[in-house]
C-alpha cells in the first residue's frame, strides 16, 4: 500500500518525461569525450562552421582549457583579444543577405535541439540528393544551410566514414561549448552526493536513537 502511494506520487512527475519523443529519426553516435577529439572538433568548427556561424559565448581564452597552448591560441586569434568571442568570419549582414537569415550562433546548439550532439551529428551528415537532383536534409527539410562538407555527393564509404568522424568530433566540441562546466559539475556532484549520503545515514541513526527513548 505504502509503495503504491509512493509510485503514484512519482507518477505525477511523468508528464515531464513523456514529451521526449524525437520528431526526426536521429542517428546514434558515440560522442564520448576525449582530448584529441575535442581539439579536432575545434579545428573543424573554427575553420569550417565559423565561416558563417559564430560561437559568441566561447572566448579564445577558453581554448586554453581544451589543451591548446598559448602559442596555438595566438595563431588562431591573430590580432584579436584573448577575451574576444569566437565570431563568424562572415559579417551577419552579408550572411543574412546570402541565406535569408543570420546563421544561428552555435554556442548553445547542443542544448537548443532535442538530442543535443546527436542532433548536430545527424543533421550535418543528413544531406542527400533527392530524385530531382536537389540537395535536401533528412533531419531538417528545406534547410538553408548548404551541404558544406559535401555529404550529398559522397559515394565512397571510406570517405564518408572519414567525414562522419570529422562531424562527430565537431559535435563533441559543441557539446562541450554548450555546457563547459559539465565535467566540473559531475565531479563535484559525486562529492556532494557522497557527503549527503553519509549525512543522511548519520541522521537516520540519530533519529532511531532519539525515537528509541519513547518506550
Amino acid at each position, binding site marked *: 500500500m505504502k509503495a503504491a*502511494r509512493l509510485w*503514484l*506520487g512519482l*507518477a*505525477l*512527475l*511523468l*508528464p*515531464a518525461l*513523456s*514529451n521526449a519523443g524525437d520528431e526526426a529519426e536521429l542517428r546514434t553516435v558515440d560522442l564520448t569525450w576525449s582530448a584529441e577529439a575535442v581539439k579536432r572538433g575545434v579545428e573543424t568548427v573554427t575553420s569550417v562552421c565559423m565561416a558563417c556561424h559564430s560561437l559568441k*559565448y566561447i572566448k579564445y581564452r577558453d581554448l586554453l582549457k581544451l589543451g591548446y597552448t598559448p602559442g596555438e591560441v595566438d595563431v588562431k586569434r591573430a590580432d584579436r583579444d584573448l577575451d574576444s568571442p569566437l565570431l563568424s568570419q562572415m559579417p551577419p549582414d552579408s550572411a543574412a543577405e546570402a541565406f535569408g537569415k543570420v546563421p*544561428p550562433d552555435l*554556442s*548553445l546548439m547542443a*542544448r*537548443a*535541439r*532535442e538530442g543535443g550532439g546527436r542532433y548536430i551529428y545527424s543533421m550535418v551528415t543528413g544531406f542527400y540528393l533527392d530524385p530531382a537532383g536537389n540537395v535536401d536534409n533528412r533531419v531538417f527539410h528545406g534547410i538553408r544551410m548548404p551541404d558544406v562538407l559535401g555529404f550529398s555527393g559522397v559515394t565512397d564509404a571510406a570517405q564518408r566514414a572519414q567525414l562522419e568522424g570529422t562531424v562527430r568530433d565537431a559535435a563533441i566540441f559543441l557539446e562541450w561549448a*554548450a*555546457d*563547459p*562546466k559539465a565535467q*566540473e*559539475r*559531475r565531479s*563535484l*556532484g559525486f562529492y*556532494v*552526493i557522497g557527503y*549527503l*549520503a553519509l*549525512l*543522511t545515514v548519520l*541522521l*537516520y541513526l*540519530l*533519529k532511531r536513537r*532519539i*525515537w528509541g527513548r*519513547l518506550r
Partner: protein
Amino acid sequence: MANRVIAWIDQRFPLTSFIKHELTDYPTPRNLSYWWNFGFLAGFVLVIQMVSGIFLAMHYKPDTALAFDSVQHIMRDVNYGWLIRYLHSTGASAFFAVIFIHMARTLYYGSYRAPRELMWWTGQVLLLLIMATAFMGYLLPWGQMSYWGAQVITNLFRATPFIGDQIVVWMRGDFVVGDATLTRFFALHFLFPFLIFGMVVIHLVGLHTVKSSNPSGINLADKDNIPFHPYFTIKDFYGLGVFMLVFGALAFFFPHFFIENANNIPANPLQTPAHIVPEWYFLPFYAILRAIPDLLGGVVAMALSILIFSAMPYLDRSRIPGGGRYRPVYRVMFYLFVADVVLLGYVGAEPPTATLAIVGQVATFMYFGMFLLLPWASRKEEQWLRARGLPRAVQELLDDEAASAKGSRK
C-alpha cells in the same frame, strides 16, 4: 555567562518561552508518517530559492538586450554560477513536487477539515503565490519558451469581459511581451518570495494554534503527543537528507531535465516555436484550459480547477475521521483523482490532436466531477460505514481517546 545573556534577553523578549512553546513543548502527534515531512521540505526549498535567487539577481540583467547573455555569463563566467542557477531552476520544480505531495497528503487524510480550514486556505494562497512567482521567473532567462509562454499566458487575460485588451496591455506594459514586461516581472519575481515568506509565517501561526493533523484523523489525547523537538526536528532533518539526495542528483547530474531545449534559443518575437508547452507543474491546468473550446470558458475552468480545492472543507460531508485511511470510497476517489491529474498532465504536454482533445475533455469532466460528486458520495459513504459499524481500528481509536480524555479531566 550564557545564562545571564539569555536572562537579559528574556526580560525584554520572549525567547525562552517562544522556544518552549513552539519547539521543546510543542505537542505533535507521535503517529505522524513521513508524508508529514513535506511541509518542512517546502519551507526548506523556499530558503534554497530565496538564497540562490538573490545571488542570481546580483549577476542577472533584466533587459531584453542583455538578459539571455547575462544568464550565459552566470553559467560560464561567474564562480559557481552554474551551480547557483541549476539549484534555482531545479528548485522551482522541487518546490512544486513537494507542494503537490503536501497537498495530496492533506487531501488523502482529510486534514483540510475542521478546525484546519484556515491551514488549507492559507496553503491555497501560498500555491497561487508560488505559481505566479514561478510563471514570472520563467520569463527572466528570455529564451524562446520564456517569451512565448508569457505571451500565451498574459494573452489569456484578454478573456476578461469588456476591458480584456486593456488588462493585457496593462499587465505587459506594452502591446506585446517586451522590455517593460521583463523588467516588471523581474521586480515582482523578487518581491513575491517575501510575500510567500509572510504567508508561510501566517500558515505556521495557524498550524501552532490548531496543531498538526495526524493519520488517524482525530485529535489525539496528550499521551499520544510528543514534543516537536527533538523528535520531529530529527525526523524532519532525516527526511531533508533523503530529499537533498534526490535534489542533488537532479541538480548535479540531470539539471537540463527541467529546462526546455527551446529555452536555450534567445527569445524571438518573429518566430513562434512549433509547440509551446508550459513547465510540467502547470500542465494539468493547461490541459483543462485547452479542453474548453471557448477562451473565456477555458480561463474560468482553469482558474476554478485550482480554486475549487478551497471548497473541500464544505464538499466533504463525512464525519468519519482519517480521510482515505478509514474511508474506502473516498480513498478510491482520491486515487482516481491523482490518476486523472497525471492524465491531464500528459494531455497538456502533448501537441493537441483530435483524440487527445477528447481525452482531455473527459479528464477535465472527471476532475470537476470528483469535487461535485463528493458531497453526495461522502454522505452516502458515512451512512454505509455507520450502518456496517465503523472499522474496528477507528472504533478502538475513538473509544481509547474518549476514555483517556475522560481520565485526564478527572
